[in-house]
Structures are given as structure tokens and as C-alpha cells.
């Protein structure tokens, strides 16, 4: 049905990138730091974000002519996987994936020149507002736009905007009389209010955005590509990005639980010697490796620009990785016993990230439905 054009093997450059990220995250992505940021007003680690920008990791998929690194989605996926291991609270998904993809696919050349170089340094943070107030992905988002003289006026509510409160520029999907269009709306635009949603996962802020007569000039309209296609492809990139992040998180939490099972003694034995514990961890490893294959494959399909394969691979990765991460994180709480249920232990942070990302941008049932439609089953 398809031909794999990119090997699963990592290039030397990718291995160097991974090793650099590990060093960075060992210093920046500590549990203490994540918890500190969780408790802050914005929920974003600004210092880590700035550093990622200095390393050139925020514009990986942005072409060099727009100030980016001109790398592929495979490199970006690798960053997400490593960041996912540490639950790094930075707007990678919202800005480096969703917002960047939307701008690249829908913005005019002039608009790209204006924004993308700043996005690549981390100076301009993007978010994507395309869901209605209840978080549904429909062809009719919660925001409408009507012409007003030379410009536009936006009304309505966008729900579940990842990092919506802290974004400098919100790519907003809106319905017009001529169908769906995308606008770039400044985060501090008059008439725009941004309220935090009390989130299950405190490491990834969500916001409700209310557009009460937000006035935009013509230059806010993203007019460089078909908006429907752009939105669709940006969401596909987001879906695969989440899957890669989930694989990183699942691996980390499985390692955490395995380490505990090697040390914890009950009944005079390391609990990892009990088959009831050992087998559950082995099953976790089997699931993890399957999830990793699905995520890596999907990232490579995007990098190769394989239009036929991306819908299959993305739906596959999102449905599988979400369920695998949740299962491994849930097992982590169970196998840690009482300590795993405490606030002080990190197990719940992974469990919450797992559950939230399983539902973000479509739950496994939805993605299996989409996959079935593509496959004709």
C-alpha cells in the first residue's frame, strides 16, 4: 500500500541532537522545576523556552529563508519525545508544531517573513484556536468573522486552546459567509479575553478565548494557502507530535516503575521478582515498543510529505500511543503502591499528562473512526 522512504535509524546529527537535549533536560526538566512552574501563574517555563530558542530548536521545521533550521519533522518529533519524558512545561506543541504548521501552510510570504523568524527564536509564541467551546473539532468552529470596511470583526468563543493565555499570536479559525478562514490575532488584541481552564494536567495550560468584536485589519487574514487544508495538515502534525511526546513520557514512566521494582522490598524480596509485577512491566515494554514504531513511522510520513500515508499513520499513532501511555502510567501508580498515589510522587503527573493527551486533538475512538474511513473498513 505504501513505501517507507525514511529509515527508522537515526542519523548522526539526530543522535547528537538527542544527546544535547538529554543534557539540557537533565538540568532544566527536573521534577522540582516542573512543579515550580505548575504552581506559577502562567504555567510556562520561560527560562527553558528561551534556552530552547537559543539552541535553535524552536524553528526546526521552519525553512532557513524564514530564520528556521530547515530540518524535518523527524527532528521535531525527537525534541517532543525528549521533552515529553520530562513533562517540560513549554509551548512546543502549541507554538513549534500547531501554530508554526498553520502559518507555514496558510500565511502569505510577507506574513511568514514577518512572523516566522521570531517564532524560530522563541520571541513570538503561537497558539491555534480551532475548537468550539466544548472542544469539538467541527467544520464550524466557535468563532465567526464578518467584513467590516477594509477589515474584519471576530465574535464567538474558542475552547481548549493550548497555551492560549500566553500566546503572542493566536491563529484563529473562523467561519465567514465564504467558509472557513484563518486569522492571526494578537494575544493582547482589544476585545479578546483569555481565561485559564482548570486543567487535569497542570503541565499544559488550556484556555478559553472569547472574541467580543475583535477588530482585525486585512493583514491579519492568512491568505497564502487553502485554510481548510492548512488547518487539517496542522492538526495532523499536532496529532503526530502528541504521539511522539506520549512515547517519551511512556518510556520515562516505565523506567521509573521498573527502577522502583528493582529496589522495593516486600516479603523479603524485591517486588520486581514477583511475576505479577514483572509481567506487567514486560507487557508495558511490549506496548511501548509498538507505540514507538507507530509514532516514528508517522513522524517519518510527515517528513516525507507522504500525503496518502499521513492520515493512516497519524490516526494509528494517536489512537495507539494515547492508550499505551495511559496504561503504562496507570500501572505506574498501581505498581508503586501507596506512594504512587501521593502528590509528592511524580506518577500522577505522568498519569494526568497521559490522560489529557489521549483526549487532546481527538480520542482513540475518533482516530480509529477516521482510520476506518480512510481504509474503507
Amino acid at each position: 500500500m505504501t513505501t517507507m522512504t525514511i529509515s527508522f535509524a537515526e542519523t548522526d546529527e539526530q543522535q547528537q541532537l538527542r544527546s544535547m537535549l538529554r543534557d539540557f533536560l537533565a538540568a532544566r526538566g527536573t521534577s522540582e522545576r516542573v512543579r515550580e512552574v505548575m504552581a506559577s501563574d502562567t504555567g510556562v517555563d520561560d527560562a527553558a523556552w528561551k534556552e530552547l530558542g537559543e539552541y535553535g530548536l524552536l524553528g526546526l521545521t521552519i525553512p532557513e529563508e524564514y530564520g528556521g533550521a530547515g530540518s524535518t519533522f523527524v527532528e521535531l518529533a525527537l525534541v517532543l519525545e525528549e521533552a515529553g519524558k520530562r513533562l517540560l512545561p513549554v509551548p512546543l506543541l502549541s507554538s513549534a508544531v500547531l501554530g508554526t504548521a498553520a502559518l507555514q501552510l496558510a500565511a502569505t510570504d510577507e506574513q511568514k517573513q514577518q512572523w516566522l523568524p521570531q517564532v524560530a527564536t522563541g520571541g513570538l509564541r503561537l497558539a491555534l484556536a480551532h475548537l468550539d467551546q466544548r472542544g469539538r473539532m467541527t467544520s464550524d468552529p466557535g468563532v465567526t468573522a464578518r467584513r467590516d470596511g477594509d477589515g474584519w470583526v471576530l465574535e464567538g468563543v474558542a475552547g481548549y486552546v493550548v497555551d492560549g493565555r500566553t500566546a503572542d499570536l493566536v491563529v484563529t479559525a473562523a467561519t465567514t459567509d465564504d467558509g472557513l478562514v484563518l486569522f492571526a490575532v494578537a494575544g493582547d488584541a482589544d476585545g479578546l479575553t483569555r481565561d485559564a481552564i482548570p486543567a487535569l494536567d497542570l503541565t499544559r495550560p488550556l484556555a478559553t478565548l472569547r472574541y467580543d468584536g475583535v477588530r482585525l485589519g486585512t493583514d491579519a487574514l492568512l491568505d497564502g494557502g487553502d485554510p481548510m487544508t492548512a488547518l487539517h495538515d496542522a492538526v495532523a502534525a499536532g496529532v503526530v507530535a502528541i504521539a511522539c511526546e506520549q512515547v517519551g513520557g511512556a518510556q520515562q514512566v516505565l523506567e521509573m516503575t521498573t527502577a522502583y521494582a528493582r529496589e522495593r522490598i516486600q516479603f523479603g524480596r524485591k517486588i520486581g521478582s514477583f511475576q505479577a509485577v514483572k509481567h506487567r512491566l514486560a507487557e508495558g515494554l511490549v506496548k511501548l515498543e509498538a507505540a514507538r514504531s507507530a509514532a516514528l513511522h508517522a513522524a517519518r510520513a510527515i517528513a516525507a510529505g507522504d500525503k496518502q500515508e499521513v492520515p493512516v499513520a497519524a490516526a494509528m499513532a494517536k489512537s495507539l500511543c494515547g492508550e499505551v501511555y495511559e496504561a503504562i502510567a496507570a500501572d505506574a501508580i498501581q505498581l508503586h503502591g501507596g506512594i504512587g498515589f501521593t502528590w509528592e510522587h511524580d506518577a500522577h503527573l505522568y498519569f494526568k499528562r497521559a490522560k489529557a493527551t489521549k483526549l487532546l486533538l481527538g480520542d482513540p475512538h475518533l482516530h480509529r473512526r477516521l482510520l476506518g474511513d480512510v481504509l474503507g473498513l
Partner: protein
Amino acid sequence: MSTDERARVEGQIEALFASHPPADTPHPEFWGAQFDHGLAWVQFPEGFGGLGVSPRWQADINRRIEEAGGSIRNRFNNVLGVGMGAGTLIAHGSEELQRRFLRPMFTCEEIWCQLFSEPGAGSDLAALSTTAVREGDTWIVNGQKVWNTLAHLAKWGLLVTRTDPDVPKHAGLTYFVVDMEADGVDVRPLYQITGEAEFNEVYFDDVHIPDSMRLGEVGEGWAVSMTTLMNERVAIGGHVAPRGSGAISHAVNAWEQTDKDDAVARDQLLAYWVEAEAMRLTAIRAGEAAKRGTPGPEGSTAKLHWADLNKSITSFAIDLMGAEGMTYPQGYDFSRPDLTANRTEDPHKAFLRARANSIEGGTSEIMKNILGERVLGLPGEPRVDKNVAWRDVPRS
């Protein structure tokens, strides 16, 4: 060095193809010539079917032969010999035995079988109780083996026996090549839940084996057995089946026969489709990693995942059939199928055959122990049979 090896392998392939065009030479004759050119097991020494080069060239050689219209069926038809016995002979056999056995093994003139498992020694192979007692230069063997593929066609068997019951179980084993046509060897079909007999039971009643047929030292049978089992995964081309094939094809076919209006069943079907495809991608990933010489955990999870998923999917396919799932159209005919029964086109048979997937080649429970202990580094179970003479260990 690797360029040198490539050139040598390439030269031998060209010479072989020139003297014995793969598409036009009868298979046994071609395989004999392939052996003589050192392209049978390329890592073996010269004169013994190899060139003494890296085994990774073998996959290329096999592919070239198939592309040229030749056959590598001997690797399947004589799988216990070509796949497992050959490596054991090279590692532990005398030169005399190597010269005697390897070539007719590769040409399939002599079929081989493996005689390891017993009714009382499945997962715990080292507990086996078939005895070999020495009388001068001869060993007298008594006992029963089970799950012996190809034993009814085999000329030679790879046999592991207990030669010393007074030491701990691993220390008292000795390994032989046994003539399956010898007096006292009785091969009987073993019928499975499918009604077919892919396997045999083999009974030994005072069977005489010359000491010259021993592989490895007396008491080192466990190490020799491990060599055989390690060779189980010798590359036979590294084929990964295409997307949508295998068990999931049964489920998809069954779904196509339904009204396709059950959302729950559809969700389950797609969940299995995804898992099957992820497993297939994992096999590709494992193959790439093995080729690079950097195998990771993905290779170790494959067997376990495949076994359990195959069972689930083939069972689900039967569920989708509704009342038809209660039928067994082929009937239980008590036949002897060929070796490809595990890849049957019949979903009813596939459903039953898959039950064995999580038992054969290491039960899923044992595989989980191995993953847990060797990959995840978890401690082993406390052992009650350690440092105890085999004679004194409880047996059912």
C-alpha cells in the same frame, strides 16, 4: 575488510549462477553447488558450506537466489537442520561429523528434527528425563520426546539426554545426533486441536547411539542445546509480511461479510488493525537495527506481542462471523499438513492454530520473565531447584 568480503561473496555468487543457473537447475543439485561455493551458511569455514565471512551477507545471497528464480525452500523444508542443527554442528561437532552431515542437510537429502521437549519438561527444558547410559563406546537411550516437527520424515535427530541424575539438572545433560531409523526409535503423529498432526511424539526404547555421534562433552548438553536454540532465529531472509496480511486479514474479511453497522465491532477491528500494523513496523525496525548491529528491545518484544495479538485477532475474526463461527468447514480430518499450516488461509483453522502461538517457542509467561529479567533488569524468581541433584527435585 567488508569491501573484501563483499567482493568474495559477489564472486562466488557469480560463479555459482554461471555454472548452475538458479532457475534451470534442479533444487537439490543447485543447493549442493551453493554449498560447494560457500554460500550455504556464509559465516561457516570454507569447505563447510561457508566463506568465513560475516553472516549478514546471507540475507543478500538468499535474496539474489530468489530474484534469479532459484529456491531457498531448503531453509524451510529442513528448518531444524539448516536453521538450527548446522550451527550446532559447527560449534560443537567433530570435523568428521561436520563433513558427513552438512552437505546432505543443505540439499535436503537428509531431513533433520529436534528432540528436546518432553511431557515432563516443557518450559523447564533442563528438567528432562530421557536417559542415556554409557556402555563402552555406545550410549543406550530410553525415554519420550514430544512436539517434534518433521520427525516422521527425518533421517537425523538433535537429541538431548540425561546422563547424570546425581548432579543439578543443567549439569547432567549430554547431546547427541541420533539416527531416526535406528532400532527402538518409534515416531508417532501427535494430533493437535486442529485435528492435524504437524508434530510427532518420539519414543526411545533401548536405542543405541555410538559415542562418536556426541556433540560437546559429556555433561555439557545444556550449553550445546542453547547453541541450537540461539540458532533458531538465524535469518532466513528477513521478510516482513505486507500491511494487512496475516491474522488481521481474517478479521477484515470477516468484517466485510457483516452488515458493517456495528460501531463497537468496527472500533475493535480498527484497534486490532492498528496494533497489527504497529507490530509489523516494529519488525521492520528490529530488522534494521539488527542489520546495523545495534539490536534494541524492539526485537525481544516481537515474539510475545505477535503471539498474544495473533490469538486475539483470530478469535475476534470468528466472533465477527456470528453463527458461522460455530462451524469448522474443513472438518477434523486427522491429516499431516505441510510446514506452512501456521499461515493458513482458513480463518477457522487459524483461530485454533493460534492457540499454540503463546506456548510454542517459549510460552508468553516465560517470554515475560525473559523480558523482565534480561531487558528490564528485574530480579529473578527464587529457585527451589538450584544446587539440588536432579534426582531429588520434585516432578509431576
